[in-house]
C-alpha cells in the first residue's frame, strides 16, 4: 500500500511504464497479478490482530476471569536448571543428521581415562563440525575468483606494469565503443 507506489517511481523511470497500476487493486490494499495471485498484507495484519483478540475474548467469555499463577517449570520432579536447556547444537541436531549426506558432519570424542580405572574419565574433548557445503563449493570459488582478479589489477597499477594496465583500459574502451555503436 505504501511501499509499492514508492518503488514504482523508480521502476517507472527505467521502463517508462507504471507497474503499480497493474499490480495494485482495491485502492492499493491488495497486490494482484491478473487473477493468478492476490495478497493483501495490511488486511492480513488486521486479521491477525482482530482474530488474536477473538481468542482473548473467547477465553474471557468461556473462562470467566483470566487467572494465572507463576510456578516453577515442570522437570520430572527435578529442579530445572540452565544446564537442561536446549542448546543450538542440540536444536539443529536432527536437521544435521537428516541432511548428513550434504553437510558431512564430523564427530570426534576424545577421552583421557584415569590410570586407576578406565571407567572414570580425567578429561573429555568433544568436537563437532559440519562442512559448510554451499559456502565451500558455491560462494567461495566465485568470491575467490573475483578477489584474485582484483588483486591482479591492483598489482598492475602499483607495480611496474602500468603500461599493461593502460593497455587493458584501452582495449576495454575499444570494446565498449564497438558495442555501443
Amino acid at each position, binding site marked *: 500500500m505504501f511501499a509499492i507506489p514508492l518503488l514504482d517511481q523508480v521502476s517507472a523511470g527505467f521502463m517508462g511504464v507504471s507497474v503499480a497500476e497493474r499490480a495494485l487493486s482495491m485502492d492499493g*490494499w491488495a497486490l494482484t497479478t491478473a487473477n493468478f495471485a492476490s495478497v493483501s498484507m495490511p488486511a492480513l495484519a488486521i486479521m491477525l490482530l482482530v482474530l488474536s483478540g477473538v481468542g482473548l475474548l473467547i477465553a474471557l467469555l468461556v473462562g470467566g476471569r483470566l487467572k494465572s499463577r507463576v510456578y516453577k517449570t515442570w522437570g520430572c520432579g527435578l529442579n530445572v536448571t540452565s544446564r537442561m536447556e*536446549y542448546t543450538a547444537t542440540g536444536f539443529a541436531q536432527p536437521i544435521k543428521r537428516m541432511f548428513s549426506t550434504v553437510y558431512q558432519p564430523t564427530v570426534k570424542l576424545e577421552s583421557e581415562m584415569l590410570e586407576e580405572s578406565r571407567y572414570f574419565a580425567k578429561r573429555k574433548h568433544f568436537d563437532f563440525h559440519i562442512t559448510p557445503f554451499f559456502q565451500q563449493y558455491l560462494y567461495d570459488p566465485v568470491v575467490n575468483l573475483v578477489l584474485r582478479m582484483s588483486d591482479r589489477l591492483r598489482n598492475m597499477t602499483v607495480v611496474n606494469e602500468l603500461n599493461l594496465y593502460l593497455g587493458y583500459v584501452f582495449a576495454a574502451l575499444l570494446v565498449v565503443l564497438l558495442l555501443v555503436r
Partner: protein
Amino acid sequence: MIGNIGLLLLQMVVMLGVSPFVVGLIRKVKALLQCREGASVFQPYADLTKMFGKEAVIPSTTSWIFTITPYILFGSTLAAGLLVPAFLADMPLGFAGNIIALVYLLALGTFFLILAGLDAGSAFGGMGSSREALVASVTEPAMILSIFAIGLTAGSTNLNTIVHRTALLQGVMTDPAPHLLALGALFIVTLAETGRVPVDNPATHLELTMIHEAMILDYSGRYLALVEWAASMKLLVFLSLLVNIFAPWGIAIEATAGAMALGLVAYLVKVSALAVVIGILECTVAKLRLFRLSELLGAAFILALLAVIFFYIFRG
C-alpha cells in the same frame, strides 16, 4: 458489506465449531477400531470448556513469548481458516491472501509455538521444538510444490478461483493426473503438518515419540485450550483444503441461502468422511521413526514434482 461480514462470522463459527468435532470423530473411530467404546464425539468441546475455566500455570522461567504465543497461534490459524473456502466458493476475504499466504500464516503459528517450546527452558519443550522445526522444514518443499501443481492446473493460486474452477470442472477433468498426484502429496503433508500418526502421535505422552505434545507441555488452563483449539482448527483447515480443492462438489457457487445450506451439509459430510479415513489410517499404520520421516516426505515431494512435470507434458 454487511452480507460479507455476516459470511465471515458464519465461516468463523463453522471453523471454531466444527474443528473440535473432527478431533472427536477421529478419536471415536480409533476407539471403535480398537474395540473400545470411546468417548463421545463431543468430548473435545467439554475438554475445551473445562480448560478455559481452569487457572493457568505459567512457568517462572518464561518470557512474554510464552504468554503471547497461544493468542498469535489462535489468531493466525483462525485467519487461515477464514481464507479457505468451506461451504461457499467465493470467500469475501479471498483478496487478502492466496494459498501461499495461507501456508505461511500457519507457518507463523508454528514458528511461535517452536519459540514457546524453547522458552520454558526445559529439555522437553526444546526437544519438541527441535523436532517440530525438522518436520516443518522437511514438509515445506513438498507442500509448496504440490501447491504449485494445483495452481498450475487451476490457473490460479487464489483459493476462490481454484475451488470455483474445480467445482465447475474447468481445466481439471481434461488431464486429472497432476491434480491427483498433488492430492497424494498434500495428503501426506496434511498428516505431517497436523501431527497425525505416521509422523507424530497425538494420543501419546511418551517423550520418545512426542513432537507437538512435547512442545506444548508447559501450557495449561486457557493457554492450553487455545493451543489445542488452534491445533484442531489447523487440522480442519487442511481437511477443508483437501476436500474443497480436490472434490468441491456441493459447495455453494453463489451466496444464496439455499445453496449455502446445501454447501454446509456437503462440507460437513466430506470433512467427516476424510476424518474417518484418517482415523482408520491411524489404526492401521505404525508411527515412523523420526529419521525415516525424510523417506515419507521425500515421497510426497516426488509426487508433487511429478504433478508439476505431468502438467507440462500434458499441456505439450
